[in-house]
């Protein structure tokens, strides 16, 4: 089936032109920052950025900063998931619980989570607890409705078929929830976790910019204060690399766990340009 969005460009041509464009940008960047076209503080060239990155790693313990930020993101999301998944499942399975809570969770999607950071600074200071709390809160509010929707979105035919086959009659495996809703929703929940993990990075960087002793965001903030744009670009690249690797690993894991979902129903088709949808 040829979709309107299917490319009319052949695969080799796509790869070549895509890579070629990126190289072109790189070249333009190098030219724009060469020999006084633009001041070093606005845009250092690729070579200067590479040097800055090397310096960060060897002299300023940048690997530790990366590790700190990763820990905060992963830790916060994990804590958030620990609470959010059971609550989301409960909401998915219970109509009255959903009726009670869904308006709140829906409303909570609208304010920008990053704006919570200063509030949490006032409440908890700028320590590690505050960082984890920010990520935890953001991830929790994102995950609960997604998990609940995953369960409530289960096709009615599956529930009907299960009931006709004896589920819910005090039978072996936990009723409709355990036999149908959870297995059907599992890959959607896994994908939501991947997505929220990716999303939480933005929140983490903001939290580290606002107040932090270590971390990628802290490093970027400090570099800005010194007028050094090289480390900033290096930091951006580092974030991109870590997110890319973790996202791909997560996708791989999900594909292993759910071999039955190579279709579009449980597994949203990956957009060409938006990886964390």
């Amino acid at each position, binding site marked *: 089936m040829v979709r309107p969005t299917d490319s009319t460009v052949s695969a080799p041509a796509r790869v070549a032109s895509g890579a070629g464009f990126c190289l072109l940008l790189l070249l333009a960047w190098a030219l724009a920052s060469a020999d006084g076209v633009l001041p070093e503080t606005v845009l250092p060239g690729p070579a200067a950025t590479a040097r800055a990155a090397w310096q960060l790693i060897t002299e300023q313990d940048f690997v530790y900063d990366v590790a700190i930020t990763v820990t905060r993101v992963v830790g916060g999301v994990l804590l958030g998931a620990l609470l959010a998944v059971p609550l989301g499942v409960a909401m998915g399975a219970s109509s009255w619980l959903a009726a009670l809570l869904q308006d709140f969770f829906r409303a909570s999607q609208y304010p920008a989570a990053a704006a919570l950071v200063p509030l949490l600074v006032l409440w908890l200071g700028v320590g590690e607890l505050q960082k984890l709390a920010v990520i935890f809160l953001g991830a929790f509010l994102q995950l609960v409705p997604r998990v609940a929707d995953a369960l409530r979105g289960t*096709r009615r035919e599956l529930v*009907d078929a299960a009931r*006709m086959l004896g589920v819910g009659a005090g039978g*072996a*495996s936990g009723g409709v929830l355990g*036999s149908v809703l959870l297995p*059907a929703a599992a890959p959607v929940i896994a994908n939501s976790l991947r997505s929220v993990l990716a999303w939480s990075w933005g929140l983490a960087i903001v939290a580290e910019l606002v107040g932090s002793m270590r971390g990628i965001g802290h490093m970027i903030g400090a570099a800005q204060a010194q007028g050094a744009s090289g480390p900033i670009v290096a930091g951006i690249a580092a974030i991109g690399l870590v997110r890319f690797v973790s996202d791909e690993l997560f996708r791989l894991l999900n594909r292993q766990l759910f071999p*039955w979902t190579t279709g579009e129903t449980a597994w949203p088709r990956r957009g060409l340009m938006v990886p964390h949808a």
Partner: protein
Amino acid sequence: MSPHRSRVVFGELSRVTVEAVAKSYPGRIESTPFPALLPTSLELVENDFVTLLGPSGCGKTTLLRIIAGLEEPDTGRVLLDGVPVTGPGVECGMVLQDDSLFPWLTVSENVGFGLRQRGVAGSAARETVNRYIREVGLRGFEDRYPIQLPDGVRQRVALARALANDPKILLLDEPFGALDHQTRSLMQELLLSIWEHHRKTVLLVTHDIDEAIIMANRCIVLTARPGRIKTQMSIDLPYPRSYVLKTSGRFSDYKAQLTEETRPDTIRTAQLPLA
């Protein structure tokens, strides 16, 4: 709705009695409830193959779901061998219209689902599962996931899954609607041979007149919404029936009759406002 039927002797229920069953649904556009099914009574005896024929929205699916125990009627009741239906259960095997296979289970695991629910395990279960997989012609597909199955094959798995619990009553809701004409024909022959082989009582909902005639010994015609029984027609064609029957004279006579019976309601349905 209690899913547990008491005093049921498993595997022997084969008589279905529907007593004045009616159902209304809350309106979607206006909030006044609209009747989907007017009080309807019918009876199926052992080894009946009855088709329910009617235009879209005439309440035939509603009626089937009430018989299955998936929905409660507003009035009336359904009896299986004299015992009132209070909820769904494996006494009735059901094949739904849309794809209802569990995507996270293989073909074997899908077919064995009902058995596992009842605690049947081990080699007995495996043997039963394999037997029905063979019977619907899916040997070799046991370890595939539904997503790996071609479209025409999925309903066969659904059929095997319903049959594996050896229900005496089979309820099918336009099971072959999504299939192409030739595949549908083959599936009808499969269903017929299963019916003949196992002596089940079958109620099949369809909007296709050919389908309503070819397998059935009786066809019940429903009116347009709100549905009620318009007529019941005995189909006196000899068994076993082959596909060549579809082009025979007697078949054509039945077809002509049913076309006349259903045409006014089909036209009415096309003109009805949305509920």
